[in-house]
């Protein structure tokens, strides 16, 4: 077992983990932060996307020990005061989700996208979220949601 100290949603979390423990399982099983989902086992689907040191990352592709010393933001940390992040608000306003399973990862990717480019065009949005699969929406309302967020300050920094 290896000791790790990872700042998650602003709070330092210390634990002893197996070296093979994936960051996503550390978040879900050790910290009970179940908003981050697992949708595949080959790092394609993006359901597990979180921010690591401010950049989007697929948490199934990172061992918890690799994240030692990092700062991680999960979907639960995006609206800590109960006020929705503009990207979350956009998804609600524009019906950017159906079953909701891909949604946390999709939102975290969109947050990163807007931080890099606060006013993307439609093609840039579609390319920017192409690492995240959604089987329900056909993506059009997700694009609308991110456009909505871009218009409402979605590019603001998270932590």
């Amino acid at each position, binding site marked *: 077992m290896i000791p790790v100290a990872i700042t998650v949603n602003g709070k330092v979390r210390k634990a002893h983990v197996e070296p093979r423990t994936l960051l996503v399982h550390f978040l879900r099983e050790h910290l009970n932060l179940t908003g981050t989902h697992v949708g595949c086992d080959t790092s394609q689907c993006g359901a597990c996307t979180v921010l690591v040191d401010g950049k989007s990352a697929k948490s199934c592709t990172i061992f918890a020990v690799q994240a030692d010393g990092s700062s991680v933001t999960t979907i639960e940390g995006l609206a800590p005061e109960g006020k929705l992040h503009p990207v979350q608000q956009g998804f*609600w306003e524009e019906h950017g989700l159906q079953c909701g399973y891909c*949604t946390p990862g999709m939102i975290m990717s969109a947050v990163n996208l807007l931080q890099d480019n606060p006013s993307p065009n439609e093609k840039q949005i579609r390319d920017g979220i192409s690492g995240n699969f959604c089987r329900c929406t*056909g993506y059009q309302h997700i694009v609308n949601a991110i456009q909505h967020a871009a218009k409402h300050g979605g590019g603001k920094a998270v932590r």
Partner: protein
Amino acid sequence: MATATPVLPKLIGERIKRREDPRLIQGLGTYVDDIKVTGMLHLAFKRCDIAHGKITKIDTSAAEKMDGVEAIYTGADIAKVLAPMPIGTPFPSPPHHAVAVDVVRYAGEPVAVVVASDRYLARDAADAIVVSYDPLPVVVDPEKAMEGKPGVIHKDFPNNLAVALVPSGTGVAPDFSKIDNTAVDKAFADAEVVISQRMVNHRLVPNAMEPRGVLAHWEPGKETMTIWSSTQNPHILKTMIAAMNGLGQHQVRAIAPEVGGGFGAKINIYAEEYVCSVISKKLGMPIKWIEDRSEAFVATTHGRDIIGYVDIAARKDGKVLGLKMRLIADIGAYNMLLTAAIPTLTMLMANGTYDIPAIRTTLTEVFTNKTPTDAYRGAGRPEATYFVERAMDMLARELKMDPAELRRRNFIKSNQFPYQTQMGAVYDSGDYEKTLDVALKAANWTGLIAERDKARKEGRLVGLGLAFYVEVCGLGPSSSLPTGGWEHGQVTIERDGRITATTGASPHGQGNETTFAQMLADQFSVPFEHVTILHGDTGIVKQGIGTFGSRSQAVAGTALHLAGVKVKKKMAQFAAAMLEASEDDIVFEDGMVGVKGAPAKSKPFAAIAGYAYVPVPLPQGMEPGLSDEAFFEPANNTYPFGCHISMLEIDRETGEPTLLKLIAVDDAGNLINPLIVEGQIHGGLAQGIGQAMIEEAVYNDEGQLMTGSFMDYAMPRASDFPRFELSATVTPTPCNPFGAKGVGEAGTLGSTPCIVSAAVDALSPLGVKHIDMMLRPEKLWRIIQGGRA
């Protein structure tokens, strides 16, 4: 057919934001894998890695020695406590053990089970089990399988025929006792043109983003089983789990918590659900199994996979005289819950939107050494649409007729509804010509033709496709569903005037918490926020069937409305007593209950509710309380329809197709929430386009799924699509009081053939008349280079 007064529009018809969303966008939804029960153990399956073989040895010794492994069971062990799994159709079916006994019949079939204290450990132990096999001949090609080649999978099913040639259509008696081919033969004899084409509607992997998962918890003290599962139909699950565990239905509670998509693949009651339940009962411990994606690719049912030999007979003026469809469905290694019934829906909808006087379809279902098929979004109807629409397109090309005009000449006319088809369906309502006109206008069809022709002159390979569809939805009387075809709703006015309603529909993305609340808020004239919809828990929802077949609004929505009618009548009686008025004069308006013509007498809705629960004095002949239920059995299915148009370009150098435009005009009758309806159509379009362009489950000759992960199976991404252009026509159904038809699957119907037709059109200057899906660039490149498809 029951006809009821239309509900007055208020919230109904509005684009209301979903109330499901706040929890889901904050990561606060609870899916099966998010649930933990004290003492919970983790289960993993050892699955076979060959497609067909005799099990000669299962060596569990290494796994047994692992610290934390609680138990290991082979198929023989499981068979002692679990009978072969039942199916939900009246077709003969070979024994199907949840965990294979002696013989494995598809790669991925479970052969052993491990229970351990930790998920990683359970997987390690499963991997440590060593299974030896004697390989058997692997059956992959359904048309060879029908001749028993290269082997037979189930001994009591010679030539691998799961369903041997069932005929349907013109001249076939309902009990098959008489088959009269006169009309069909005459149609083909009289024809001036006949088009014949073999078409493949290939195999797909449904791929809901949440893989399946089960948590079964037998509580020995109470003798009850609680089973959480990522399912579309918890009530069916409850029934089956009870039956297979030898329990009464009162002992089982099935819960579908947040469910991350289904698309038909979560209708089936699966081996993993049965196995978790029997092991939980055996060990007296909660047992959790969560499917990996790699596992899901082989262990969750696949969709489509049907070959159609299609012949269409017509006059030169375009009038279609006859249609023949010989269907061969590759159903994989076993019959699942609805497997055998899915292709019968292809037969039922064979004529599409056309008035075709003579039709013969035949259906053969064939076992192969592949993952079993079952429902996948559309389930039988996209296949029918694909075959008939591609045939119509080929006919139009042969006759050099505009594909829209050919369809117009053959449509069932608006004054022919209700329309009895040759296939035995009664289409409820329709105005196909109107929808076609709206679609042609929305797409600027003549403008698109000019654009295509201009591109062609520049040497570009641009094509247009048009497809029309009709779908059978709102499934659908009990005569058509072995589970029962009704739905249940209960409406309770709480003591504080809030409304709690339960529905047997079990949404997994459809937004019924929102749409059903819109309905009830209107019905009682109370604020939307005062209505709560509960679902997905058989401990709370007394009865139900589930969510599939685009039935939620048409069937479950109507059941809730009818329960509301009963409660509202009782509430009016209490109001009449309280307000000293006649029941007939009671009006519900804006959160108040009042007396017609006497506004001063009005009382808040909550006040009447409070009186009903503390009825002093109790009006004569009345019971306290405000809660009632309804079962709704639809008299008929609903038949939504629409027209999809696409424009596609193929890169001459690389063969890569790009979808430039997709215009969809859908008629789902009256809409409760157009925002949600659009979302449903978008999602269906994406899956229909995915099938046409990039998705395909590919097996090799050894029966190995070559597209067994997201690295190999092309899931559509945001960058694969243009912006869809949607519009709607509204032709209400007389089958329910809302006039709503259903929309969940519609998008998958028209999109697929219209895209293939666009690709054929793009390559038509090269003499191409048909291309089988999917439109792999390599395939198109070979055609462009003069090779064969």
